[in-house]
């Protein structure tokens, strides 16, 4: 795409390797004076061919491959993949396993949101705050290591259950961690939400209106900060989330108004840390007894999964937004196809309305405000730049044609 040029305007390019960006993405911008008047971005600098590798491995191996998609929110990919396989095989994880999954997923959310808060502070040039928030993050990492045996890659989930139980003796440590975040939440909120420097850098910067959030299909905290009530934990209520009454957090819960700016995105994420802590506390206290997996022996799981045929979709509300995994099994050992849609894929289009009309100095914090994760997003790479680009209408027409073709195949 070429950007529209104006008289006296010039173009600058941020990335793929740039000190302001933590991961490679190329932002092309048309600048008039200090103002951004055109935005475009290029992806696929970190394509790793994970989906290709999955078609040469069995589902239990793909589970750990899925975990390596993202370094921060790795459990969400494992959970989505196993949920996709579970829908194909009509497998139901036992209730205790569902509770442990919720505890794991919420610990991950606390870790991811606090990490992001540190990165946001760093992008604002407030490095002492970054080190302070990352110090707070250590507590949840230690708890994760205590439960699962590793700080980041938890390896908690298997198809139809979980791999590690949370015995009675580990529960006090989890509650201790939850209380730690309760007691530090106020201080963190005070610094992030009342500090005049942060407020002036983030208030009314990078505004994404509710309408833009809907048309660009934003997900997760980015959409919620713009006033879109969207949360898979509430909408689909999978795992054990129906027991906890998760309400999507909108910024008007705290300030009484929705701006859809960077400040609101900070606010939503901070409030979600508290919400996650509440969910963990409830889950730990009301955990049912029973088995932790549909089938405990990995060899039996493999044998039972091999004859499965069909397509399945697994959804999960990752810290960054909704993640979708599509899996097709054809009765062979390895999946026939696997498609991952990471939340950043949806949250990138909102960059265009967010960055329009903003100052050059605000580009890093606006780009970081959606919590981008490029390596999760990169699912395809185009080797020749001559490939056709489809518009929204063309894609919709293609999907109509495909549906008609499928219906004809069904004899309707």
């Amino acid at each position: 795409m070429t950007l529209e040029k104006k008289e006296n305007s010039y173009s600058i390019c941020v990335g793929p390797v740039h000190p302001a960006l933590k991961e490679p993405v190329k932002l092309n911008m048309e600048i008039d004076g200090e103002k951004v008047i055109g935005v475009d971005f290029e992806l696929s600098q970190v394509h790793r061919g994970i989906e290709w590798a999955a078609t040469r491995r069995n589902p239990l191996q793909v589970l750990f491959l899925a975990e390596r998609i993202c370094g921060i929110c790795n459990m969400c990919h494992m959970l989505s993949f196993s949920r996709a396989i579970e829908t194909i095989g009509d497998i139901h994880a036992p209730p205790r396993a569902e509770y442990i999954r919720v505890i794991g997923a919420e610990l991950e959310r606390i870790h991811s949101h606090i990490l992001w808060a540190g990165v946001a502070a760093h992008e604002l040039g407030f490095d002492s705050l970054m080190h302070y928030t990352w110090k707070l993050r250590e507590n949840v990492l230690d708890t994760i290591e205590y439960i699962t045996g590793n700080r980041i890659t938890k390896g908690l989930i298997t198809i139809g259950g979980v791999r590690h139980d949370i015995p009675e003796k580990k529960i006090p440590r989890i509650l201790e961690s939850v209380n730690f975040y309760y007691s530090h939440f106020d201080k963190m909120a005070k610094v992030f939400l009342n500090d005049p420097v942060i407020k002036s850098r983030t208030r009314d910067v990078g505004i994404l209106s509710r309408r833009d959030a809907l048309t660009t299909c934003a997900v997760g905290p980015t959409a919620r900060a713009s006033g879109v009530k969207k949360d898979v934990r509430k909408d689909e209520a999978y795992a054990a989330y129906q027991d906890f009454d998760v309400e999507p957090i909108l910024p008007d819960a705290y300030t009484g108004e929705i701006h859809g700016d960077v400040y609101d995105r900070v606010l939503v994420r901070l409030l979600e840390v508290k919400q996650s802590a509440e969910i963990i506390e409830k889950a730990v206290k009301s955990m049912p007894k029973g088995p932790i997996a549909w089938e405990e022996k990995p060899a039996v799981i493999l044998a039972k999964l091999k004859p499965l045929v069909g397509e399945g979709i697994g959804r999960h509300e990752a810290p960054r937004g909704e993640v979708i995994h599509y899996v097709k099994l054809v009765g062979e050992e390895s999946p026939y196809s696997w498609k991952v849609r990471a939340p950043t894929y949806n949250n990138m289009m909102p960059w265009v309305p967010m960055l329009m009309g903003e100052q050059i100095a605000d580009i890093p914090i606006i780009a970081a405000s959606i919590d981008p994760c490029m390596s999760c997003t990169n699912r395809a790479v185009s080797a020749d730049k001559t490939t056709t680009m489809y518009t929204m209408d063309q894609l919709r027409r293609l999907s109509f044609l495909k549906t008609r073709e499928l219906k004809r195949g069904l004899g309707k």
Partner: protein
Amino acid sequence: MFTMQKELFRQLFKRAFTNQFPVKHAPKSVAKLLEDVGKGKKKINPPVPVPDDFRGKLAYDKDKCIGCQMCTRVCPSKALVFDTKTRKVKYYLSRCTFCGECVSICPVKCLSFTKEFLLADYRKD
């Protein structure tokens, strides 16, 4: 105003959180440091203890292994390779992702986790 400054001043007078492992300052020569430690001249700060279920380097009991190849089937990174001559498994530490699937699938429990985590090296062999 000054919400963060208060916290920062408080941090100034607190003990450092970092565990200075293995020694406080980088030594000029690692070999000499190890020699001194061996002689008892210098002391090494112990690392932060790892939890009980820590997933560290794999321990492989070769005599117990029956060569069923189950671990090679579930290893996601192909770190365990079956040797047809000896009917045993070869373990490539550099490929291992410490997922623990081999430990849970092994029928005779010849694979287990140790608490060893200092595995970085310049050489791959």
